[in-house]
């Protein structure tokens, strides 16, 4: 696959602190890549560097093979960027905010009008286009920023929390648009809404302390790192003796005990039955079982150490 974005040993510092630690990866053309991670993992900085909003301290970013610093002017036309917080001009209407940026790209009024109408059909911004941006809710502003980022028809779209501040309807409209755009644009976004990430991605990058610690589709990530189930059994009484017997059952991973609740992970459901058999003489009050997902991947230390580690 042809690479849309390529990062080569990209590093970014803030004083003594490393924000991005020599990142090297490529993003395929026409793919949708989600970047997730803890707060302060460097996600937004990574987006800003990819968008040309900030320069890396070392390393290089290439967009369609062009160096983002040496060929800055050409790159600008290829990339659309939506930051987390509103950067609309509060005293201009939403329409004029979008139109103004279109003029800076040298786009004529006819094309601007066509593009605004096209995206307006999906995002339903009719009632807000002629309202001053400062008077609009943050969710509407965010939709306006998305249209503004698309006004020059970029081939790469970089979004920091694309649905931040949005209600359910706006959220759905935005994802409908992004999933349509994915067919002919590369979309890279950061999100903390893991359900959205699970639904909309070709690839997920998990960032931790400025490094990519996991990279792949959700299925691949869960398969390689977390093909585990989470089990929880609440006993009437969980004695130390019983707990010690249970944790010796082969296949039980990271067991823990909280009062009378026994919590553990295992790759197959058979382990669960082994535990039930071992503890059959003790009365059980509750049973809980679930297949792990992206949230568990992030919540746990698995991503960093591996479940078996």
């Amino acid at each position: 696959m042809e690479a849309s974005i390529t990062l080569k040993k990209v590093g970014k510092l803030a004083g003594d602190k490393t924000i991005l630690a020599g990142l090297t990866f490529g993003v395929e053309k026409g793919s949708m890549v989600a970047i997730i991670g803890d707060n302060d993992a460097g996600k937004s900085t990574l987006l800003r560097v990819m968008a040309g909003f900030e320069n890396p301290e070392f390393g290089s970013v290439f967009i369609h093979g062009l160096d983002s610093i040496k060929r800055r002017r050409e790159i600008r036309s290829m990339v659309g960027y939506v930051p987390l917080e509103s950067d609309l001009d509060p005293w201009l209407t939403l329409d004029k905010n979008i139109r103004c940026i279109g003029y800076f790209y040298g786009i004529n009024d006819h094309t601007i009008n066509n593009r605004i109408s096209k995206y307006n059909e999906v995002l339903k911004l009719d009632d807000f286009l002629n309202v001053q941006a400062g008077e609009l809710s943050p969710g509407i502003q965010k939709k306006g920023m998305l249209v503004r980022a698309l006004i020059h028809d970029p081939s790469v779209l970089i979004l920091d929390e694309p649905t931040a501040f949005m209600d359910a309807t706006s959220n759905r409209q935005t994802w409908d648009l992004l999933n349509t755009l994915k067919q002919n644009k590369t979309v890279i976004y950061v999100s903390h809404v893991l359900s959205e990430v699970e639904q909309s991605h070709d690839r997920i990058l998990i960032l931790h302390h400025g490094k990519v610690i996991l990279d792949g589709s959700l299925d691949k990530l869960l398969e390689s790192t977390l093909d585990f189930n989470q089990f929880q059994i609440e006993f009437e009484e969980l004695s130390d003796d019983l707990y010690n017997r249970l944790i010796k059952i082969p296949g039980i991973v990271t067991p823990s005990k909280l009062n009378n609740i026994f919590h553990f992970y295992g790759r197959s459901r058979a382990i669960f039955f082994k535990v039930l058999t071992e503890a059959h003489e003790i009365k059980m009050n509750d049973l809980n079982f679930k297949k792990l997902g992206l949230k568990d991947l992030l919540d746990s230390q698995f991503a960093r150490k591996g479940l078996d580690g």
Partner: protein
Amino acid sequence: MNTVIAFLKRRWWLTQERLFSTLILVFITPVILYLLIHLPLNTIIVRSVRNIPYGDWALPGYLMIVSFFGLIPTIYRDLFELRLHGKALFPITLTPVSKIEIVMGILITAIVESIVYLLFSLIVFLMLIDVSYRWFDFLTIFFYLIIQMALIGNVIIMLALLAKRVTTFLPVVLLILAVYIFGSGMIFEFEFYPAQIGEILKYLPTSLILENLRTILFTRYFIWWSFLIPIGIIISLVIANSKILRYVVKQ
């Protein structure tokens, strides 16, 4: 050219939002200058050292003072407020427009806006002050006003880019304004100052521009060096400001 047109359209849209208050200020500023500066000084000075009627001598200076006020809103808004608070400068920096084009675009927009204010102000001044200029003299005055605005506009741009707080920006702007009004020969001649101070003030770039203009208006003589030095400074400031903009937006 696209950049300048985009900045101009944007500025026009913004001005429409506050057209009434802008018009009031445009008419009030020359009236205040007339009442508080011209009336008292004209009774003291009457004619300049070169025997020019004070109204003729001072009018270019008054217009330059008005132009200063015309420059501030655009530059403050785009390069200070929207850089630090609204962040609306950043989407512009992500377009395929160089930093020097952004600086030039904002400067030209500020100058164009200021010229419109100056035309209104000139009408007010002409109603209040007797002057003996011919139409060609007004063209010359506006040509020099543009040069003066390019110079002082660049100074304000530099301040707007370097200042991080409004409590820094405002006092420094007032200080620049004080030097601009009192140190550039706008309302007093340099002969009123102690000799050494007057000698230094004469060579301020803003003084050179105004003195060059007055020399043309009153003696029909053009001094190249005092014209070229400010032009050189303006070009250097535009380049310096584009570098500073690149530095402050970290691009």
